[in-house]
């Protein structure tokens, strides 16, 4: 699984989901409308930089706080293909994986990236490349790679629920 994108960079640490998508809009369920509020509390002009082929480069503990899935849903719908960060907060990290939006950690790659950098991600090889320079990413557990490849938790679970109403096993029911 290989992906390529142009970097949009949010360098600061501890960016919380409240600034990424303010609470006032949590009653929005239409994904197209969610995209209009992405980054609103941080820097709305970031929205103009998303070009449908974006690699979002972020700092440490990105996505802290609320479990609101509006953030990664709006990101995916805005053309963010994957995220490279120093580290991620737990629920945001889960939400991205569950939506099939790859999130990987590589502090060195974040350091090397600047706005507009060409970034490619090879999940199987565990390598992220920034303007031609390769960096190793923190290992992604096999199960999470399986979810990325499946396209997220919805298709992954759908395939299993079709087979059996109750038994869900990790890696247990490959074709």
């Amino acid at each position: 699984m290989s992906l390529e994108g142009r970097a949009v960079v949010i360098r600061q640490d501890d960016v919380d989901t409240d600034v990424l998508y303010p609470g006032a809009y949590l009653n929005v369920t239409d994904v197209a409308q969610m995209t209009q509020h992405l980054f609103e509390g941080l820097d709305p002009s970031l929205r103009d930089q998303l070009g449908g082929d974006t690699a979002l480069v972020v700092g440490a503990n990105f996505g802290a706080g609320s479990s609101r899935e509006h953030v990664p849903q709006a990101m995916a719908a805005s053309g963010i293909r994957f995220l490279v960060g120093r580290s991620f907060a737990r629920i945001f990290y889960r939400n991205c994986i569950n939506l099939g939006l790859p999130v990987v950690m590589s502090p060195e790659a974040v350091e090397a990236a600047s706005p507009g950098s060409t970034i490619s991600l090879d999940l199987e090889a565990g390598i992220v490349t920034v303007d031609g320079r390769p960096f190793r990413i923190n290992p992604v557990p096999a199960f999470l790679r399986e979810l990325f490849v499946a396209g997220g938790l919805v298709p992954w679970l759908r395939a299993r629920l079709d087979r059996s109403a109750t038994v869900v096993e990790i890696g247990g029911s490959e074709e």
Partner: protein
Amino acid sequence: MPHTLAEKILLAHTDEDEVAPGDIVMVRCDVVMTNDISGPMAFRAMEQMGATKVFDPAKVVVVPDHFVPAKDTRSAELQKLLRDWSAAQGVAYYEQGRGGIEHTVLVEEGWVVPGSVIAGGDSHTCTYGALGAFGTGLGSTDIAACLASGTFWQAVPGTILVEFTGEKGRFVTGKDLILAVIAEIGVAGGTNMALEFVGDGAEALSIDERLAVANMAVEAGSETGFFPADATVAAYLDGRTERPWTAERSDPDADFAATVRIDLDALPPLVALPHSPGNVVPLAEAVGRKVDQVYIGNCSNGTMTDLRQAAEMLRGRKIHPRVRAIIVPASQRVYREALAEGLLDLFVEAGAMVSTPTCGACFGGSGGVLAPGENAITTTNRNFRGRMGSSEAGVHLANAWVAAAAAVAGEIVDPAEIAGAT
């Protein structure tokens, strides 16, 4: 092999024979909870998963509490969807005016017992750790998987042992204990970890104070946080629940990632300054900051304990002329108990507003959001930029003594000064 309490709880909820930190396992839920924000998106994802019925209607609880009472038609539509879906699925549903804030409701109504696993579509689901449960806050797609299959994936966390020793001072509460922990380990210090609260200082805490501590485990970035069950929990659950439970603890020789010790004898009241729960200072360093609004309530500190503390500060006094005070009991039970004790009358007499239980302005939803340039002191759990309204407003987190004292003084002040001023 010795195990931490987190490992023991997860082992009892998987098909694995052994678990170790970092292993990804499928975990069975005892209870799945959702609300008017995570619910509608979860129901849509559940449909996309091809599931038409929840895995077990007896294990699903729905509580509308965020944009409650409906602040606009869009919110009302979501709440209608929640109501209709709950009826169609035959799951437990706490109507507005008969429940309150989800976490308080689930604890009060006996859904939470020690050793249980509770998946909730809200990041403060870790609150259930007050009773020794593994509460995990999840997003909508995770909740959809829980509703459809009764399971979620989980990387087994390591454990940070948080030991509270000594006796806390008069105006120090559970709020200060957890702020001290966040100050110590940082807002990402608990990443991939569970916090386990132990020590004589932990055992001495009431359930209300444990709720305040466990509630903010997520503000340290942790997977969850909990107190091993003890006699205090047993007494609280007596007559409240039919669910079976046993008191488990970490094995003494279990492998802990770290130990943090907090000496309560030396702990002053604390304040988290804008714009991070990790931006913690002793109260003395925050004294003198003017406030425009005081907000006492939410899932961490809207209990009877908190309201009694606020009442003690406000009894016979007036809210400062420049200040608005909003009191939000966390549940209908708390609301009625406060009513019966005369606290609500006391608050209104002092010039405060008393709200129905709601998440309300805590997350910037409705019922008291802030204007640019305003400052608030609150007993809530997050003070991120823009959390309670304008990005140009500042929120200070503190305990109910400190918040109520500020309501009287119009600025942050030591509650001992207010108490001594009569």
